[in-house]
């Protein structure tokens, strides 16, 4: 989706606000929603791609207005309701519906793992080879995609084959994993931004097979 989250190349977003000796969490509630988010994710009711899409479809004004962890709070509440783990009424009242307590056992989470499957799968063929010239497709899907607008239609070179990964564009919508190769693709800064860019510079993006065509 051509949403507000796809920020690469936008201008006038102001100076970078740098905080010295920044704490990991700025308030206790940020740590709690971070941990709740991880715990709920581990239940695997929704996948990482669906989770990202839920953030992307926040109204643009909300996306910009909310702080990072406020977005997390908002979309976790949305996902809980959407997947039937909590009702809107329970969220509003903070009280479990009669008979709904301890319906399921909470899973104890201790690791940092994000549950991304292995990238080694010799049965999935690579459509492109290292050194090959490619062009990012010009496409504008309404759903989730990890192909940023600024790269669409631009030509680059395959620098590395990262192996096989789940395709987010379908996985986010529970339309299958469609595992395929992901490549590191080098785009010259001038190809992306024109003459104003330094002739030496480049941007590397990781791109799924289906995002690319032969240049």
């Amino acid at each position: 989706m051509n949403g507000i989250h796809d920020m690469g190349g936008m201008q006038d977003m102001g100076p970078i606000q740098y905080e010295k000796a920044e704490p990991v969490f700025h308030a206790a509630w940020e740590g709690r929603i971070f941990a709740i988010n991880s715990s709920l994710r581990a239940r695997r009711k929704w996948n990482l791609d669906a989770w990202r899409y839920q953030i992307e479809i926040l109204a643009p004004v909300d996306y910009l207005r909310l702080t990072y962890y406020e977005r997390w709070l908002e979309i976790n509440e949305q996902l809980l309701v959407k997947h039937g783990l909590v009702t809107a009424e329970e969220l509003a009242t903070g009280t479990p519906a009669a008979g709904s307590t301890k319906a399921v056992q909470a899973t104890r989470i201790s690791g940092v793992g994000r549950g991304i499957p292995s990238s080694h799968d010799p049965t999935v063929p690579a459509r492109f080879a290292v050194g090959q010239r490619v062009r990012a497709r010009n496409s504008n899907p309404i759903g989730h995609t990890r192909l940023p607008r600024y790269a669409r239609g631009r030509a680059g070179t395959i620098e590395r084959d990262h192996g096989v990964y789940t395709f987010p564009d379908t996985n986010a919508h529970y339309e299958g994993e469609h595992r395929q190769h992901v490549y590191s693709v080098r785009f010259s800064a001038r190809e992306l931004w024109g003459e104003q860019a330094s002739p030496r510079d480049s941007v590397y993006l990781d791109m799924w097979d289906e995002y690319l065509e032969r240049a």
Partner: protein
Amino acid sequence: MKALESLLVEKGLVDPAALDLLVDTFEHRVGPRNGARVVARAWVDPAYKERLLADAPAALAELGFTSGQGEHMLVVENDSKVHNLVVCTLCSCYPWPVLGLPPVWYKSAAYRSRAVIDPRGVLREFGTEVGEDVEVRVWDSTAELRYIVLPERPAGTENLSEDELAALVTRDAMVGVSRVTAPGEKA
């Protein structure tokens, strides 16, 4: 927020002890000190550096840093000809196991929007001048690969121990927005 947590606890959807453990892990156990140890080891041990650049997850595991289940880490090296900078324009992808959770500026619209179109301007904002003869490579973390920059070892640190070197390495240098400076050197 408290209401949400107590609701989820009452419904058996989260375990408060597990939440405490997660918060504690990211406040105290996982953070840029992990990455700094990796960088210092790579500076003093060329064979380790070679392994780190070739297969970062395995090299990180040697130091006890495991990167989850199949999440792939890549280390990109700065030298006199190349300066690397890491961003996630679409969200906030960041190498948690070695750097911890990202700072607010890394997740901000200002950084995410500008790092790809004006990396030299962004670097200047961090006080980092990169010469016209140096190639700036920006890594936009659009997939499940996570990037960490191996900064250049500053001159004048030949006699420092691995631990002393690790103490010089900053989070910002491993994202690529700044350089590592020797003790007493101006950034």
